[in-house]
């Protein structure tokens, strides 16, 4: 199978806002359940161990006409909750049995309560995570939260989630993390062979497919990409930061590439790469997931940096390890975490002579010319003067 064939399938999944693949998965066995989750991170291993399908919801993008959703939000609130409500009210998510709202910002937090009011009877959980990274403080709290999630899913499915099932699920997701990192690694090494628009679609497919199927897809893509014949361009290597929740339209990613930038790292759909290393498959699986969260999570604006000197460290490491020449801060309009974080990260970039630019987008942005011009000028300035 060629990369084009694989990406064509991914694109079809990406555009399918009725989630047909997830529906079919569920219809194959009446006992199956689907648990949806929003950005930025949930421990999908627990859902998987319950025999359920974790389904990532990233809003409606630019392919969904939001009719009902806008009536629930003021003009100064971002797009993702509107289109998510639209997905719910338009019955596109009527097959979903439960929904997790991770701790990311006040809008998504409040959406959890709205979901309870709008869809009574559905399993809804606000998934809180510790901002204290001590094993005996934040760790104990988080382990108990994970156990509450486990119990909630057990209640929903009517069956126990065993430790063995959890260990097996952790192993499957470890493999997923390995393959995802391999794709990202390949893109960083040879971005002319692995365009970011393809990487993006590959990762989006991982939100709606069973993990085993996604693993197979990633393996096939990696093999096929080796055979791609493409010429290296004199593009500038950039890291994208700030796009961890509401996603940009695919055209925005393509526009950045067309403007002369190779995206060599990003924070799109960070659920796939939230944990930087494999989670231990021995011992207490809940404890292992908890420790992995405390000590192996990537840095992002939704998290607290408990030391001032840690602010921007991860971003600078992304720049260094991917030999990036600049950073593009691309945040959704009205995104509190990304926009509040940006001045601190920008200061770090300045201190380390890393060039950067900033712009905002919405998931349904249609006009790409300004983005293309800004990114193009940025790339030119780096090539000419950096």
């Amino acid at each position: 199978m060629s990369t084009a064939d694989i990406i064509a399938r991914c694109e079809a999944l990406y555009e399918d806002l009725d989630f047909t693949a997830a529906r079919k998965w569920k219809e194959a066995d009446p006992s199956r359940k689907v648990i949806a989750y929003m950005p930025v991170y949930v421990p999908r291993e627990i859902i998987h161990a319950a025999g359920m399908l974790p389904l990532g919801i990233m809003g409606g993008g630019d392919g969904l006409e939001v009719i009902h959703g806008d009536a629930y939000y003021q003009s100064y609130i971002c797009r993702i909750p509107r289109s998510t409500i639209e997905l719910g009210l338009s019955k596109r998510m009527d097959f979903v049995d439960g929904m997790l709202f991770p701790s990311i910002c006040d809008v998504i937090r409040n959406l959890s309560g709205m979901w309870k009011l709008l869809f009574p009877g559905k399993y809804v959980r606000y998934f809180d995570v510790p901002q204290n990274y001590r094993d005996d403080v934040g760790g104990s709290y988080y382990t108990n939260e994970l156990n509450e999630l486990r119990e909630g899913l057990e209640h929903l499915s009517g069956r126990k989630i065993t430790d063995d099932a959890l260990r097996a699920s952790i192993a499957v997701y470890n493999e997923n993390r390995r393959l995802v990192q391999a794709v990202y690694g390949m893109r960083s090494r040879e971005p002319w062979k692995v365009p970011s628009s393809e990487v993006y679609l590959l990762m989006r497919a991982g939100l709606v497919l069973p993990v085993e199927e996604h693993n197979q897809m990633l393996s096939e893509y990696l093999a096929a990409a080796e055979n791609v014949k493409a010429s290296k361009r004199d593009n500038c290597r950039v890291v994208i930061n700030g796009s961890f929740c509401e996603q940009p339209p695919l055209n925005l990613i393509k526009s950045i590439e067309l403007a002369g930038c190779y995206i060599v790292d990003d924070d799109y759909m960070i659920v796939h790469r939230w944990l930087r290393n494999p989670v231990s498959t021995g011992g207490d699986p809940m404890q292992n997931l908890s420790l992995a969260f405390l000590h192996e999570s990537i840095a992002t604006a939704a998290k607290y940096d408990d030391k001032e000197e840690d602010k921007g460290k991860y971003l600078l490491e992304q720049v260094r390890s991917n030999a990036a020449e600049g950073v593009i801060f691309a945040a959704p309009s009205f995104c509190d975490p990304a926009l509040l974080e940006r001045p601190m990260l920008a200061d770090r970039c300045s201190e380390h002579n890393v060039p950067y630019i900033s712009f905002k987008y919405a998931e349904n942005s249609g006009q790409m010319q300004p983005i293309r011009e800004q990114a193009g000028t940025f790339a030119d300035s780096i090539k000419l003067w950096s």
Partner: protein
Amino acid sequence: MSAATSPEVIKEPSMVKQKEMIAGNYDRLTGTKESGEKVVSTFVPGNLNELIMCFDMVNNLPETNAIQNGMRKVSGGMIMDAEKAGHSEDVCTYVKADIGMMGRGNIAPNGKPMPAPDMLLLSYTGCFTFMKWFELLRHEYKCPTVMLQIPYQGDGKITKNMRDFVVKQLKEEVIPMFEKVSGVKFDIDRLREYLKNSAKAEDNLVWVLESAKNRPSPIDAYFGGVYYIGPMFTAFRGTTDAVEYYDLVRKEIEQRIREGKGPITPEGDMKEEKYRLVVEGPPNWTSFREFWKLFYDEGAVVVASSYTKVGGLYDQGFRHDPNDPLGTLADYCLGCYTNNNLPQRVELLEKYMNDYQADGLLINSIKSCNSFSAGQLLMMREIEKRTGKPAAFIETDLVDPRYFSHANVKNRLESYFQMVDQKRSGASLAAA
């Protein structure tokens, strides 16, 4: 007549006392260079004033500084300074007013420069922005910072796990940091004494807020309410000053009830109570007086509000308990209004609508504050559905004068009051 041209603002003795208390705290804050006292900055929701006092530290609240600057109409320039420095136009204006204030020398209302904080107590309660705000301040001040994470009541309840987590953080992180910065050893009995004072003052605050069940209501529980909650939510809870303040204000309200008076406004006693409202959301501060005037000119009194619960839901039974000093601090933080989930908030507003016999709900939706604002349109529909009473929605901001449109708010309120009248006449006709 605009409030700006009114001859004299009417003040009662409790208002004078509160003004003196606030002025005294600013003098104390700006005098730390001479006194050697240490300063801790923290937030209003989840404000641990009793604990701060145990370490002889002075409490500085950036939110109230922003409010002061908003009411003195100087926040607009500060916000624009922060935006010029790279802070997004989309984010909270409290944050930008605070950062802009720093750039202008951090001048307190008494005209003297504020000291840099010796410590930041990041009480992460009911507002995500708090976390980034104090990271931004730490980025500027490079001072010790301690986080107290308060888990959100996603399922509408406080679990043992949440409470244990907060108590553990107090024991393992917060108190040790205070001891280190202040050099004062923690004394739990001292904390108990302050908590006793808190509970006394809280009893009277609740009495004052619930006095709005009278007809006419002797208080305005939103515009007037922000004065009543002032000492409790800021640097005074746990002090004897606060106990005295709430004794005084209770006596004043008792007198107003005896005399059958309505609320006191900046232009004197409100004459006729035509509309009784419940208000959800914080007020606008840059045009506070003009905003209030739009209500009392129409005979509208706010009988209950959610904003006066951001620093604790005392009217729902919570009291600081000296018998469980750390546990009670955890319960307090976990119970603040914006730490409640949306169904809880809807239930509370519905309860207020019924208990205070309100004619309707008004939502003042604040651009800066997603913690309050996200979901308010659904809350409005739910309240209308459950109570059958009309609701209205206006949009302003906290301290950004660019987002207060007097004409728009006035038009919206006038239409709303007409709607309440129509609903009433419809109800009377149906009864006849």
